[in-house]
């Protein structure tokens, strides 16, 4: 409802309606009181002196004039409130108009324009709000009011609320101040921005003000709340007794500034608090769908600048921009960082201001709501972005926003390193009475206790990287600390956890430092109790899980190393905590990731865990996506393709190793997650073949460099894999290699050997043991055809083993012509043409091994009757029998079924059991232990992954045990039946004519 307002007021109200709804407070006041105010000024002939519709340079003077015309307090307050409302709207219109003008004329760069906008608008707002408060206090305070001083402690341009602190002298007349400030608050909430008294909420008794003595009482013995200190250090006196502020500055504020050669514990405490937050904010993952200028960047920048302000003693500079300006001109070395922070600060502060002006006074901006983009367009246009054919203003603004966050983090990170160095030079732990690094031998008391008592002052601060680094780099100190920690009372673990409860990063770092330097301390004494307490205190809360998640996101290596060393019982407890969902979607996302990582660690055998540990410790950035199979696959493909982009062979080999490690780990994780084993076998074979082939090529290239005229090995050299690799089975931990040369040329052999020596060195680095099948026998990695021919002409008792290796081998590097020579010169004459001898040796091997394993109560998935080795030897027998050279695979089973159609069903059953037992073995290796002898009590762990990959017939470990036993027994029986049908008998019975067995 508008009453009797002139044209200009209509214009003003119209513009106000374009601003955020919260401006209704001001338009309401104008609508209700404007007429009365005009009439009042008219009556006193002041209408020309107090021009209501133009922003005033002297609002205090005008408000006092208005106040002087009235006796009734309520009317007086309403008229002053109306005047304030008019001026407030005019102030903002002026701010927008000038900003638009400057951005369109561009006399300087955009950031300087934004800076001028912020400074100008901040000063105007400070002038108006300070004047309003001063006039109201003149109204509310009696003449005999005690001394007081109002400190402005917030950002000057912030109109959402006005952060203030109030100093007094603590006299008995404080209630007079309390009453006046209560009235001030009530009046401000109606007509202006809300006051916020963070300092009063923490210092002093019940009331709005606090005395210097009360600051002493609260802050002398503990560093306290660094947010409070941050506000105090940026405080400026705006109203009241200047002497009081001077006393406060010299008595309280001064001690938080660095003083060379003095005890700097207050300064140190402030830095530990603020750096903890800066570190958190740098490592904080920004939410995708929510903008929060304060959390995303402003707090980070302002905290960094205040930290520098306290270090450099810049108490005279009381705005962030002012401090930045000084540092930019005086600390030339870090000028680039200051300029980065300057650009981000001006951009983010302007964005926040305009968003709150045009939309709503909220810190969080949710982007999921489409309608927000219309509002953001308006903000973006005011900031100088205009629509283009490819992007709306809001889109451009968001791109710049994200860039500025990155730039701010980058700049702050570099400065954080400088401040951290400063901190390590001035800390009381280095220079004070409890200095821990000065002379360890002379430090007679318990150093762990000493730390705690000194750290008590710093309670609730979170930045301790400098001290952690001290312990990490000084083993003697670490040992002394751990010994003393164990000697102290068991309650020390609880006291430490209580002290650092908000910082899991601190403890996780500590445990990983112990693991790296003195691991034997971890599983016992108070250090073990510390781990127990740490896990026991964790709760499924946003704060705890958020903090843990942050460690995973930004220090993944630390987090994994911590999980790696965590005892199983504690890991289980942690999993239970992580299983409870968190409402915040971002934290919930990271909770799930951490839970997956814990489950992976918990499910992995020590053998596989060690593997993951090695990969994550070398390439920690991959850890972030470990539970995203698609992403992992992409990384893997990228790693392979990227190899050729490097020039040096050494670098290419290094990259190839990364590819191998990564693929092994990726497929291991997939296996644990229940991926179909056919897929795993195929992918494993592809990457392991890739690895050997590329490695051979790279090593050959390297060796060739040392030859002027390198020998040719085309059609002469072949690389075979034997064992599981030959059968295209995943997770073969060893590489059985056969390197054959179809030549007796010494130069060719030497050349080939040099390649293999080089290859060997790199394979070993992957923690894989390459076995060269004939290397021992012929004392060379490379075996010539002639060596083998000579050997088979004069066989030993176990030469059937060598023949099996050859018969089961698969060519991974070499020509077809070479393979043909291999078959014609070795396989046919020495195996197929001497099959009876070969087969009888295999039968004897099966018989003896079965006899040995029948006697044992343990199940061995490989060696027991019906186990993997039985099947493999059985297949060798049939391969020799039918003269088939194909490696063991499903294709071989089909070929055999074709040869013996009456046994097709039995072959299918053998294949199915073999396949099942192989999966049992692989999962047992990955999740339990790198052994073939199964311990039934641990089978629980592999039940689910086996079921997920399609196996049926069991629900728990005892049913699985039954299925394993049944598979072994049935396989043994099927093998026996088929061999019997071909006249090969496994049961030696002298009464039964056994054409093979009788030879032995």
């Amino acid at each position, binding site marked *: 409802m508008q009453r009797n307002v002139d044209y200009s007021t209509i214009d003003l109200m119209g513009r106000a309606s374009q601003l*955020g*709804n*919260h401006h*209704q*407070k001001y338009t*309401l006041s104008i609508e209700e009181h404007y007429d009365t105010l005009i009439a009042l000024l008219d009556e006193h002939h002041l209408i020309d002196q107090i021009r209501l519709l133009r922003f005033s340079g002297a609002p205090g003077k005008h408000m006092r004039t208005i106040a002087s015309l009235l006796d009734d307090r309520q009317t007086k307050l309403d008229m002053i409130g109306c005047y304030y409302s008019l001026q407030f709207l005019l102030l903002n219109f002026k701010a927008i108009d000038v900003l638009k003008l400057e951005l369109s004329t561009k006399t300087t760069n955009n950031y300087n324009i934004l800076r001028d906008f912020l400074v100008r608008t901040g000063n105007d707002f400070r002038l108006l709000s300070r004047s309003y408060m001063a006039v109201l206090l003149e109204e509310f305070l009696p003449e005999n009011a005690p001394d007081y001083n109002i400190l402005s402690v917030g950002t000057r341009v912030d109109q959402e609320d006005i952060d203030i602190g109030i100093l007094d002298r603590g006299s008995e007349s404080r*209630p007079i101040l*309390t*009453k006046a400030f*209560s*009235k001030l*608050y*009530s009046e401000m*909430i*109606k007509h202006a921005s*809300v006051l*916020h*008294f*963070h300092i*009063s*909420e*923490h210092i002093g008794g*019940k*009331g*709005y003000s606090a005395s210097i003595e009360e600051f002493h009482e609260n802050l002398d013995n503990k560093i306290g*709340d*660094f*947010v*409070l200190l941050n506000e105090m250090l940026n405080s400026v006196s705006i109203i009241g007794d200047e002497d009081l502020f001077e006393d406060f500055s010299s008595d309280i504020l001064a001690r938080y500034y660095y003083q060379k050669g003095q005890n700097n514990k207050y300064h140190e405490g402030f830095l530990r*608090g603020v750096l903890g*937050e800066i570190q*958190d904010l740098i490592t904080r993952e920004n939410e995708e769908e*929510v903008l929060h200028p304060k959390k995303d960047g402003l707090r980070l920048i302002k905290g960094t600048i205040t930290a520098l302000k306290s270090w450099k003693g810049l108490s005279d500079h009381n705005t962030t921009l002012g401090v930045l300006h000084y540092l930019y001109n005086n600390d030339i070395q870090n000028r680039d960082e200051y300029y980065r922070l300057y650009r981000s600060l001006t951009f983010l502060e302007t964005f926040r201001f305009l968003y709150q002006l045009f*939309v*709503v*006074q*909220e*810190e*969080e901006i*949710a982007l999921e*709501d489409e*309608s*927000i983009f*219309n*509002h953001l367009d308006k903000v973006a246009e005011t900031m100088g972005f205009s629509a283009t054919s490819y992007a709306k203003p809001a889109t451009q603004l968001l791109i710049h926003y994200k860039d500025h966050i990155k730039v701010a983090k980058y700049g702050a990170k570099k400065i954080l390193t400088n401040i951290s160095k400063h901190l390590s030079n001035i800390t009381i732990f280095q220079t004070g009475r409890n200095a821990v690094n000065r002379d360890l031998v002379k430090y007679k008391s318990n150093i762990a206790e000493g730390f705690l008592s000194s750290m008590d002052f710093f309670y*609730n601060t979170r930045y301790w990287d400098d001290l952690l680094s001290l312990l990490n780099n000084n083993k003697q100190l670490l040992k002394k600390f751990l010994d003393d920690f164990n000697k102290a009372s068991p309650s020390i673990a609880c006291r430490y956890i209580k002290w650092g409860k*908000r910082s899991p990063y601190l403890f996780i770092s500590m445990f990983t430092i112990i693991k790296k330097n003195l691991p034997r301390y971890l599983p016992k004494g108070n250090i073990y109790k510390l781990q127990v307490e740490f896990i026991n205190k964790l*709760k499924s*809360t*946003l*704060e705890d899980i*958020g*903090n843990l998640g942050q460690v995973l996101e930004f220090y993944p290596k630390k987090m994994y190393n911590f999980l790696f060393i965590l005892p199983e019982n504690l890991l289980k407890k942690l999993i239970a905590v992580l299983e409870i969902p968190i*409402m*915040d979607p971002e*934290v919930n996302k990271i909770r799930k990731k951490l839970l997956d990582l814990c489950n992976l660690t918990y499910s992995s055998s020590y053998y596989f865990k060690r593997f993951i540990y090695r990969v994550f410790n070398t390439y920690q950035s991959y850890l972030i996506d470990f539970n995203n199979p698609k992403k992992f696959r992409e990384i893997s493909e990228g790693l392979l393709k990227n190899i050729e982009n490097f020039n040096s062979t050494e670098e290419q080999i290094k990259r190839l190793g990364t590819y191998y490690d990564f693929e092994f780990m990726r497929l291991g994780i997939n296996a644990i997650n229940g991926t179909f084993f056919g897929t795993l076998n195929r992918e494993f074979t592809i990457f392991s073949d890739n690895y050997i082939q590329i490695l051979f090529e790279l090593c050959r290239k390297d060796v060739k460099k040392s030859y002027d005229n390198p020998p040719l090995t085309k059609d002469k050299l072949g690389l075979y894999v034997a064992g599981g690799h030959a059968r295209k089975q995943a997770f073969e931990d060893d590489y059985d290699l056969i390197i054959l040369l179809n030549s007796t040329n010494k130069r060719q052999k030497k050349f080939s050997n040099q390649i293999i020596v080089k290859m060997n060195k790199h394979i070993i680095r992957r923690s894989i043991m390459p076995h060269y099948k004939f290397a021992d026998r012929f004392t060379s990695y490379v075996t010539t055809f002639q060596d083998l021919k000579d050997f088979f002409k004069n066989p030993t008792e176990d030469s059937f083993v060598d023949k099996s290796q050859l018969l089961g081998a698969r060519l991974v590097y070499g020509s077809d012509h070479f393979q043909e020579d291999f078959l014609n010169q070795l396989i046919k004459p020495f195996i197929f043409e001497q099959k009876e001898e070969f087969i009888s040796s295999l039968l004897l091997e099966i018989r003896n091994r079965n006899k040995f394993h029948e006697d044992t109560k343990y199940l061995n998935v490989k060696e027991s009757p019906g186990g993997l080795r039985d099947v493999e030897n059985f297949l060798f027998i049939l391969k020799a029998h039918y003269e088939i050279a194909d490696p063991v695979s499903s294709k071989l089973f089909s070929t055999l079924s074709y040869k013996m159609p009456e046994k097709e069903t039995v072959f299918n059953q053998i294949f199915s059991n073999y396949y099942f037992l192989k999966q049992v073995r692989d999962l047992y290796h990955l999740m339990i232990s790198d052994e073939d002898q199964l311990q039934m009590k641990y089978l629980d762990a592999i039940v689910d992954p086996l079921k997920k990959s399609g196996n049926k017939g069991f629900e728990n470990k005892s049913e699985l045990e039954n299925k394993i036993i049944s598979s072994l027994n049935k396989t043994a029986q099927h093998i026996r039946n088929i061999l019997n049908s071909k006249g090969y008998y496994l049961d030696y019975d002298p009464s039964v004519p056994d054409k093979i067995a009788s030879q032995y």
Partner: protein
Amino acid sequence: MSLRQEIRLSGSGGQGLILVGKVLAEAAAIYDGLNATQSQSYGPEARGGASRSEVIISDGDIEYPKAENLDILLALTQEACDKYHKDLKEGGILIVDEKMVKSLPDENYKIVQLPIIKSATERLGKFIVANIVSLGIIVKISEIVSEEAVRHAIKARVPKGTEELNLKAFEEGMALAKEWMKTHSTLVK
């Protein structure tokens, strides 16, 4: 002795509890002619994800701006409930979301457990108005400010274009509370 009501709104960041505090305080101060203070947590405790806003409403001067003896506590997370319920005065009103807060304190409080978030997401289709649903519950149950004042204050605080949705959320909260009061009328005035 003047009436002094202390209200704390607690939960996690992103739940819009600061806005609820502002609306409640302005409804009291601007539209109902009462005195009110509103503050939000700024300290380190507010930076771990928890969110807290306090409102004090009085018909006299408010001589101390910090809420310590709460008449009403709204807790939208278990963490907030566990952390703050001890600040509730005996017989105070604890309002919680039935899904988010499962474990309730065994103290002499009037506990109002309602599907706040479910109503916002399922009935209104927007999680972000769960805060205003809560506001409706507080206003209906406590009668601390007039419903009309709150409607004005909502319109004067939320972004343009969202007024209708927020007013609907407020009515939804009031309806939830009304339904609850039918069976619990003896507990609350």
